[in-house]
């Protein structure tokens, strides 16, 4: 090995900065709610928990960075991971719903969201699958669909529409990047789009709901379906360039829904202004760049597709969240990676970044070490013929 394995420190730094900044903002956004929920006992309830999540997340990130990513290429590991994920997603339905959704598994004080794990599981599965099978052959693609459908279906019926969209995004991007035929892609996309249109078309109420994002603060929307997003715009708009100052958000005082999770970006916008929000946007841009560098620089096909899946998952989620908060897209419950409060998301995301960091170690050494990588089985077959 000619080159020393070197981790991408910029990727690590931007991730760590976002996560730590997230802890601080979670405190600012949740202090009043924490005080209210604990009847004035403490304002640090969410802060401490998030601090623990980040600590555990960093630990797992370190583990991910230290573990050679090829372990996920092993058939057994992929199968076990898939089975565990699907089982967990199924177990969710055994618990009573919170706010009308069954997303959590709870045991002795802990709770876990399997849908967070499903993003990583799907990424690993797709990377493995499209390394083994050709994305150009319709038969191979179709045979992976049942697994994808089970994952998506279980998440969709929780219901967790946001995560379903992210999973769909991961599938499309990985499939496309792996070398999908455009005709095949259109063949899949067309019915999906038609189904989505029909889904909205036959329910005027849902349609109205979806389209309310165009003017969330209108007379009829601001107190109804547009309320959350409208409050978010109030918060972000109020911030101006320099913001109201740290911890000085007024919108978090029970006007903004979930100011410490889904709408944490709005609190950042109000407290730290354009300077704060732009910093976050740039941080995600840096993350995208570093992540892409690690993914496309990976020494083998599996590494590339795995990296692409992870980066796509995190970026799509961030873009969705920001777009909802800024009323660019219809509202759906999606948290902001690294920043929003939430243990499952934090731990899984940071572990995923650990895998990316491990990938980044291998950048630039593929041509020497992996020349003899075995080709796709499909081509192998063809060669045999």
């Amino acid at each position, binding site marked *: 090995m000619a080159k020393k394995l070197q981790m991408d420190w910029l990727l690590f730094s931007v991730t760590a900065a976002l996560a730590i900044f997230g802890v601080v903002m979670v405190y600012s956004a949740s202090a*009043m709610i924490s005080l209210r929920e604990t009847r004035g006992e403490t304002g640090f309830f969410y802060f401490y928990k998030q601090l623990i999540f980040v600590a555990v997340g960093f630990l797992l990130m370190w583990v991910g960075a230290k573990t050679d990513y090829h372990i996920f290429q092993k058939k057994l590991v992929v199968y076990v991971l898939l089975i565990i994920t699907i089982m967990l997603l199924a177990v969710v339905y055994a618990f009573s719903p919170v706010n009308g959704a069954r997303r959590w598994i709870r045991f002795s004080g802990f709770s876990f969201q399997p849908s967070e794990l499903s993003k990583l599981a799907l990424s690993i599965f797709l990377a493995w699958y499209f390394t083994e099978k050709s994305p150009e052959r319709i038969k191979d693609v179709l045979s992976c669909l049942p697994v994808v459908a089970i994952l998506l279906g279980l998440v969709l019926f929780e219901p967790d529409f946001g995560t379903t969209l992210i999973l769909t995004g991961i599938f499309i*991007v990985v499939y*496309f*990047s*792996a*070398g999908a035929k455009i005709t095949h892609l259109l063949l899949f996309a067309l019915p999906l789009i038609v189904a989505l249109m029909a889904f909205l078309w036959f329910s005027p109420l849902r349609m109205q709901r979806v389209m309310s994002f165009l003017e969330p*603060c209108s007379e009829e929307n601001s107190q109804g379906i547009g309320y959350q997003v409208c409050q978010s*715009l*109030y*918060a*972000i*708009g*109020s*911030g*101006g*360039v320099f913001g109201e100052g740290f911890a000085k958000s*007024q*919108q978090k*005082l*029970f*006007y903004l829904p979930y100011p410490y999770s889904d709408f944490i970006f709005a609190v950042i*916008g109000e407290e730290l*202004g*354009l300077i704060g*929000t*732009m910093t976050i*946007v740039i941080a*995600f*841009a840096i993350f*995208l760049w570093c992540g*892409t560098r690690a*993914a*496309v620089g990976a020494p083998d*096909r599996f590494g*590339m*597709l795995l990296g*692409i899946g992870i980066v*796509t998952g995190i*970026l799509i989620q961030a*873009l969705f969240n*920001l*777009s909802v908060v*800024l009323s*660019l897209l219809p509202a759906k419950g999606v948290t902001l990676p690294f920043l929003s409060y939430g243990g499952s998301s934090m731990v899984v995301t940071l572990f995923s970044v650990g895998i990316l960091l491990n990938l980044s170690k291998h950048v630039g050494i*593929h041509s020497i070490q992996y*020349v*003899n*990588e075995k*080709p796709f089985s499909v*081509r192998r077959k063809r060669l045999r013929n």
Partner: protein
Amino acid sequence: MPASIRKKDFRQETFVRFLLIVALFTIWLGIIGIRLVYLQISQHEFFKERAISQRRDKVRKRMMRGTIYDRSGRALAMSVKARSLFLNPQEIENPFIAAEILASVFKFKKEEILKELLKAKQEGKRFFWVGRKIEEEQAKRISETLQREAQAKGLSVIKEQITGFYWQEDQKRVYPLGSLAANVIGFSNIDDVGQAGIELSQESNLRGAVVRKWQERDRLGRVFDSEMEEKEPPKDVYLTISASIQHRVEEALKEGVEKAKAKSGIAIVIEPKTGEILAMANYPSFDPNFYSRFSSELFSNRAIQNVFAPGSTFKVVSYGAALDRGLIAPDEVVDCGNGVIQIADRKFKDTHCRKSFQDSIVVSSNIAAIRAAQRLGEDGFYSYLRAFGFGEQTGIELPAESTGILSQKERWSSASLASIAIGYEIGVTALQMALVFATVANDGVMMKPRIVKEIRYSEGTYRKMEPEARKVLEEQTASVLRKMLYQVVLRGTGRLADPDGYTAAGKTGTAWKYDEKLKKYNSEKYVSSFIGFAPVQKPAAVVAVVLDEPRTERRNGGDVAAPIFRRIMEQILPELQIPPDEALVAEEKIETSNTDFSEVPRVAVQDSDRKTDEKRRRKRED
């Protein structure tokens, strides 16, 4: 193709394809950046304003109106917290149910309230009063009942508020002592603006300023920041009135007026040394708590607003002025001709002749008073009338005070001097007359009458009203007059005014009322009065009692007003901690003969009524 090349191709393809995705992500991030600039720079003002306006509300609150106290700190008028209920007709979902609920809780007629409500709704009104100034306790009960009813009838109730129903914080004026001193205190209307009496004259002190308060609330409605306008709080007004004296005076007056079957009555109590009004009573009166139920005629304070011809009580002015100039002496015998003197075209008749001035005042001789004035001449007499303050306001802190009527000397007819000398051709208020006697009681020094003792500020400081004094008569004159007036009570027309245990001095008055229609004095309608002070040596209180149109057989001032004076004095002097003095001066008492006299001055002897009136002359049986 070697495997490595193929591999490289796949790498290349994936690289390009994913870069396409990354480009999309980057564009998306760019759009977010542009959106952020738009929201946080271009739309900053707009959203900030909207955000503030949703959590900020302006509360307009009127400070509690100041309290009116009597001299010893008893509240006469005060404001208490109350609430008012109004509807926003535009927000009422179902006017029929709303009307039904209101009708059941407030005892309204359902059809009427429904009609009004529908009309208001149609006209686009956003404000509809249901109940105003409901006291806190009651408001709470009503609110609960309303909520129960509303819930039962299916109206939406959110956070204890029925949609479209609003409670507003308010205040209510209450007068704890009811009608006591009502004509002095006055009342304030539903908007808390003084309409009469002290409430009106002290409006600027009592009025509670409207304070604007901005509150920032979180979404749960809890206030986390507020900003309040600084406004000077209202002041409290302390009156010179004593509630207990006022009460006794009102009782005595009421009884006296009813006994005399008079139309109305006035009684004033003044402390002569200071000019402070201890009591000012009107009968009949009203209850300011329910002022709307009374005729507005009852609201006026007749003690300072009603003008009447004083009649014989005015003779004190004539005597006083002449004595002051040294033009008469008490024991000088009055030349009264044959009992009839003619001045210009008018004849003045008197049955009392060949008496001293002292004895003349005892029997209320007209000619003696006219002679006294004649010696002064028009100029001299007029200057004393002005000095006593006739024809101008006394300046008491009460609204709508009358000046009385004193025509310019230049406009006097040749008979005017004589008429005024016996209390005609002049209009006075009861207070003006009371002040003449207060001047005599206070060694000739007239104190400006005062009813506001002090103004207290919320921070505990206060402004005392300073007394103002004016010398009208020489001390010697006042002393002589006091002795003369003492004789009136002791053995003259005012004997019924003599209080037990105390010496008292005063003068009766019985005047015909001037009839606007007949343009002359009507001998059928009297204003009977008694004004005096006690004790004689060191007067502690001046009491004026004036009855309008007494209708009993005996209705002279000495018959109907003097007993009221006596009762008042007997009750208030102990209250003022004045020791009885009658025993000390008993030896000065002079045996009185059964003098036959009439005190009603005859303005026109030609008047045929004279005879009927003479029949009414009293025979005193002591």
